């Protein structure tokens, strides 16, 4: 074939292809169906999400308060502080809590399980909060380091806001009392001063002064209750327990390396290092009798009620090694899978209550335990994610006390 014939056929083919392209470009249908057919049809069913409807307000979570479970997770938000309150005799019991970071306050109705935000006022960087017994006031620590601030808030239910007052003193630790006041401590040059603050009058009064700064304070539930103070705990230095009651400081017969404690007017529960081990004891103050407590309990993971024969509940892990306790737990360096145990008033025996990992499948690092006034429930937070949980003590348990 001649070379010219090849050229003619090639030009003709190019012209045909150009014509087809121009036709498709300007005259073909542009429906998505046609476009879709150009890709693989994998024969999925209708994937349009018909259930999801975006709303501007977040739906309020509901805690299943009717569920017959002794252990319940109450929040998914991290909790800076919480309290069970009952505003009036006819009103249902509720749990109020403050969210870490935002400072928003929520209320969970313990009868219906409904959760409601009762303060939308943002306290940026809220870290620790303590509610007054009636739930009206809350003392808050927010921020870190030099930006740390302390605020007293009063909940305004009508406007869902928090009326806040900045506190000028450099507060170290604080707690609330049964009569809706706050106990707190501050540092001076070389001492620790304990005070009581009345949020209604905005007045304070000094309770005690101790000549060292590095103090851990276990506050009582009332100004007149026993408050226990000791130099902060470490396995490498000795600590000594002091009781402050009605302005009188008494050295308790409790000391030791790695010692920390909690107590009420009749009993002191403490743990300390003994050789390479870590052991727990209960001291009957009036008889001065000390009893060894089963298992190694970290007192910061325990709560004690205020009665003469108190209910003491501790969170305990079967620690593989105890020779680094409690320092390793303070640093967050040990993994924990806590169970709840109830210690007898004299400390001589411990009764297993529940294993959250068996009951819920979650391994918890339990802290901030609070026993309710009627001993029917134990609230606590999980250190790892700061969520709030509650354990309902069995009726028989309550009757025993």
């Amino acid at each position, binding site marked *: 074939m001649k070379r010219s014939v090849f050229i003619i056929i090639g030009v003709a083919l190019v012209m045909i292809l150009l014509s087809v392209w121009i036709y498709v470009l300007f005259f073909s249908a542009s429906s998505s169906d046609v476009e879709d057919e150009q890709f693989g049809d994998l024969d999925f069913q209708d994937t349009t999400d018909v259930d999801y409807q975006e709303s501007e307000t977040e739906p309020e979570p509901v805690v299943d308060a009717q569920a017959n479970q002794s252990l319940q997770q109450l929040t998914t938000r991290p909790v800076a502080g919480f309290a069970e309150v009952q505003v009036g005799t006819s009103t249902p019991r509720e749990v109020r809590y403050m969210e870490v970071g*935002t400072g928003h306050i929520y209320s969970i109705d313990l009868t219906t399980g409904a959760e409601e935000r009762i303060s939308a006022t943002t306290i940026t960087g809220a870290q620790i909060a303590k509610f007054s017994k009636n739930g009206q006031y809350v003392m808050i620590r927010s921020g870190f380091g030099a930006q740390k601030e302390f605020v007293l808030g009063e909940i305004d239910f009508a406007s869902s806001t928090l009326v806040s007052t900045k506190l000028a003193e450099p507060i170290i630790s604080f707690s609330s009392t049964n009569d809706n006041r706050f106990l707190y401590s501050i540092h001076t040059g070389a001492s620790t001063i304990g005070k009581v603050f009345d949020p209604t009058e905005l007045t304070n009064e000094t309770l005690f002064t101790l000549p*060292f700064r590095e103090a851990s304070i276990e506050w009582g539930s009332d100004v007149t209750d026993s408050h226990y103070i000791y130099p902060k705990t470490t396995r490498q230095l000795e600590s000594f327990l002091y009781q402050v009651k009605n302005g009188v400081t008494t050295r308790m017969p409790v000391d030791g390396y790695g010692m920390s404690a909690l107590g009420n007017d009749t009993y002191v529960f403490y743990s300390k290092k003994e050789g390479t081990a870590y052991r727990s004891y209960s001291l009957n103050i009036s008889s001065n009798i000390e009893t060894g407590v089963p298992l190694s309990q970290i007192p*910061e993971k325990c709560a004690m009620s205020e009665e003469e024969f108190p209910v003491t509940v501790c969170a305990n892990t079967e620690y593989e090694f105890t020779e680094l306790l409690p320092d390793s737990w303070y640093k967050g*360096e040990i993994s924990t899978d806590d169970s709840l145990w109830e210690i007898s008033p004299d400390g001589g025996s411990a009764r297993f209550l529940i294993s959250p990992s068996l009951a819920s499948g979650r391994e918890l690092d339990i802290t901030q335990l609070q026993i309710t006034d009627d001993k029917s429930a134990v609230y606590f937070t999980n250190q*790892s994610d700061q969520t709030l949980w509650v354990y309902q003590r069995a009726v028989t348990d309550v009757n025993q006390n």
Partner: protein
Amino acid sequence: MRLFLILLFVLFGTTTHTANAQIEGQGLAPQQLLEVSPEFPRPGEFVTVTLNDYRSGTFGSTITWLYDGQVVEGAENSRSVTVTAGTVNTETKIEAVLYTPSGEREVLSTTFRPVYLDVVIEAQTRVPEFYLGRALPSVGSVVNATVLINDGSSQTDLVYTWQINGQVIEGGPIRGRNQISFVTPRRDSSILSVVAAEPNGTILAQRSILLPSVLPSINFHEVNSLFGLRYKPITDELIMIGSTVTIQAVPYHLDIRVYNNPDIAQWEINNSLSQNQGSNPYQITFKPTGVAKSAKLGFQVRDTTLVLQGASDNIQVRF
């Protein structure tokens, strides 16, 4: 004659006095024959009293121990007895009654009065805010020591003598000041001693404690801009979920002066110095680039004058 009599008196009188002195010097006072350990017990503390009488005259004696006049059961003929110290500032009397083979009776006794002497150690080193424990001394850091005495009285003018590793601090005894400051010596541990005495010189109590000196250390924590520092430290490696992560190096037991004004505070990524530093030298915002799937993230803080006053560590970040 009168002069002769005076000379006789001086001569014999002096001789007699010297003889008495020699007799006392040869033996020990009765209370010195009983050794109390600890010498200044706390209330309720176990106290061991040991008979250190090895005089030939008491060889073969039977021994009966008395605790405040009551016979200590089971301690017959023991050379030591362990008793419990009483309550604060109550005197306890321990007696050892010896009957020699020749039938002579001798009573040795000692007393002790328990007081609480607590030494509170406060190191001026840094630990994070969430840490419930106490900061420990590290080499070169300042330590404040406070004595708290509970002897049932309200004495405030006691005289304190402090020693560290046998060296007296503050140049000698100081009256009324129960707090001192000193620099942590260059050794793993030191012995800090304090003696509390009444102004007339009577020793009320004394205590010696082992003062640790630890090496500063670093933990790494994730930081959330809203919630703050994550409580659990990153142990060996961090698996990133988002595109960036903020990590904070948290020193433990680092001298506060070094923490606030470090000579060296630097981050390293795969052993290369990182320039990604904001206003807080202890924080870094880490954003992976390139094709690598992990990086070694290290941090060190150090004082260049006292090189042991510092710490460094690293973690693996996977992304």
